[in-house]
């Protein structure tokens, strides 16, 4: 059994935590577990990356997303939401692409949607950097991906290249999730 002093402190911390609008511990856990699930689902979706190697391309994601150093949690949330939204929209573009496992794709879209819901709930209160330059640079990055797909007529190889790039996006998302601390 715990002694009385840590118990009182725990109760105080719980009350203080309850008074804050967002429990970042819970949010981090939820986003991390969902991002893990997304990575796993995307891996199932990627087919034959080997013969598409010739098409590999670096879409140049902004550096500050690759290595988020000292980022404030508010900016991290805005950046994460942008990434999730763009990944969601990207996969919605050609939802019924032949060769894709529809169940896996549905599950992936559900996970992305769920994460965005969690973030949007958490972002109902607080001050957020709405005019983040990182968000603008991310839009350019995703626009580059869309233009690439269009130029390659949404070919299977082009999609594979894009899926591999998005898989790396989920690793970057994990780095941003770590910034969500009180």
């Amino acid at each position, binding site marked *: 059994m715990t002694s009385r002093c840590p118990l009182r402190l725990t109760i105080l911390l*719980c009350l203080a935590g309850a008074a804050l609008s967002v*429990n970042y*511990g*819970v*949010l981090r*856990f*939820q986003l991390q*577990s*969902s991002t893990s699930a997304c990575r796993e689902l995307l891996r199932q979706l990627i087919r034959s990356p080997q013969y598409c190697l010739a098409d590999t391309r670096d879409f140049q994601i902004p550096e500050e997303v690759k290595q988020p150093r000292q980022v404030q949690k508010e900016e991290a949330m*805005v950046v994460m*939401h*942008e990434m999730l*939204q*763009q990944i*969601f*929209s990207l996969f*919605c573009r050609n*939802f019924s692409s032949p060769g894709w496992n529809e169940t896996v794709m*549905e599950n992936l*879209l*559900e996970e*992305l*949607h*769920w994460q*965005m*819901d*969690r973030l*949007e*709930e*958490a*972002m109902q209160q607080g001050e*957020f950097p*709405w*005019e983040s330059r990182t*968000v*603008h*640079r991310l*839009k*350019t990055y*995703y*626009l580059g991906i869309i233009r690439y797909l269009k130029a390659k007529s949404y070919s299977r190889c082009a999609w594979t290249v894009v899926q591999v790039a998005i898989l790396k996006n989920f690793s970057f998302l994990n780095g941003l999730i770590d910034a969500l601390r009180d």
Partner: protein
Amino acid sequence: MLALLGVTAAVLVAGAPWVLHAAAGGTGLAPPQNVGVDIIDDIFTLQWDRSREPPGAVAVSADYQVPGMVDIWTELPGCQHVTSATCDFSSLHPYAYEEVRLRVRAEDGGLTSPWHELDPFVPYQQARIGPPEVHLEAEDKAVAVSISLPGAADGMWQLDRGSFVYSVVIWGNATGPQAWNKTLRSRNPRIKVHGLLPETTYCVTAQARLLLHRNPAAFSPARCVSTPVESELPAPENVKVVLENQTYVLRWDYTWDNVTFQAQWLNSYLKRVPGRRPEKWAHVQGCEHTPRARCALPPGLLWREVYLRVRASHGARSSSWSEEWKFDAGRRATIPPPVVALKALDSHALHVAIGLRNQTELQHLLTYEVRFWENTTNTERTIVEQRTDFPVPGLRPRTVYCAAARALLAAGPRSQHSGPSNTACARTAAGGGPGARLAPGLTATLAALAALLVLCALAAAGKLAHYVFFPAGQPPSALGEYFPEEPLKNLLLPASVERTEPCCVIENADTRSAGGTRGDEDHKAYASQTSQDSGNYSIEDGSAGSGGQGGEELGPPGAGLVARSACGREVCVTRGPGPRGL
């Protein structure tokens, strides 16, 4: 002097245009005034104040630069030699997310003004959101509003189509005290307003704003539609999902009989999908043509977040769809179900212990919702706890109670939770009736008894210590009766030797009978004393073992025998009250 002044003034006046010329960098023209950028959706407009010269006399040209992409000043397409007060530079839309620099100058024939550079801007950030298009469809006591985003599919908002928040204002055409209006917000461009009156005209205006940006947004022009005559087959009402006996059941209200119901579901993420495709609703298994106003949800739906809707049918006619109910059974895949154990604490309480199979970092984040019920009567209560060990008091004795729990990861209005745990049962201890009322008193009595025992033990220990360290000087008188022979008396000196003082005068055998009374008195005095000595003695006068001859060496009367016990203490060997076994 005056002439000098006059000449100076004339020079100054004549030189004014020259001064202007010099000030204007040698062109004589001032750059355009009040230059500004106005971007609405995909239309980029540069505007300035019209010049005072006759129209057409002065033209404006602009250059642009996009640092990192277009590093040198380049002519801005659509804004070269413009004689009106605005020009369209929408050709810069590929740079919507980049920092753009513009500069403008006035031109009059061969003359040009100096460049006037505008503050750098990001078109996406500057852009206003134009009025969306609104399409209305009247239904039975409802209006379906469909909002189309402004701009081209590959325009300014092409990457934001899923990030809009729509505001809809709907009002009835009645005025005065019966005037009614309602404002709704939705993340979905398809909004259905229920609960309206039949045969009434309603008007709608809508606005689309970005979720994460502060761009100003315009409302659409009002569109109006009239609701039809009330249908004979109204839509079901109060659609909701309830938990009944660990099953999720979709229920609704309906006043009419002889109808069948049809339920449909939609994956809630589909409402986020941008585009004008119709929503792909699917039938709920087991609820295709049900006559009852309820149906159990199939397990497949419990792992998703879905919208549900119901309509009634009678023959070939169907009602309109009910209001949609958003259902989320919680994503149970990520939180393992807890393990519950119950044990009796006493006749009125049970102890609940909750554990998680996998010790994850989750534990400190979780709350537990415990269903607790009496096995025979099924009266149930729900206890919400963050502790994993806690008592449940106020129970009846000798009664079986059961508990099951689920773990909640409470986060905002929708909490995520695990599946149900095992069911654990236990019986409270016996007791109850008068015993129950006496229990506190009984506890106090027991406590008092325990205290008394402790005191007695302490007193006894004190006496023993006293006996050990301060033994009585006299052997028991009975010793002499049974063992008249001196030597044996020595042997029979008890392990529990009593002494009254550290080293004392000891009666020898010769004086013993004379002092027998006194010895008795001593015996009586020491009767209650005990000794803790080990009882192994050796006589220091050199004799050991049985000491048969020891008695002869006792020494003169009044002299004491000093023996050393096995534990090394010196004790006065006296003739105390009877030998005691070791």
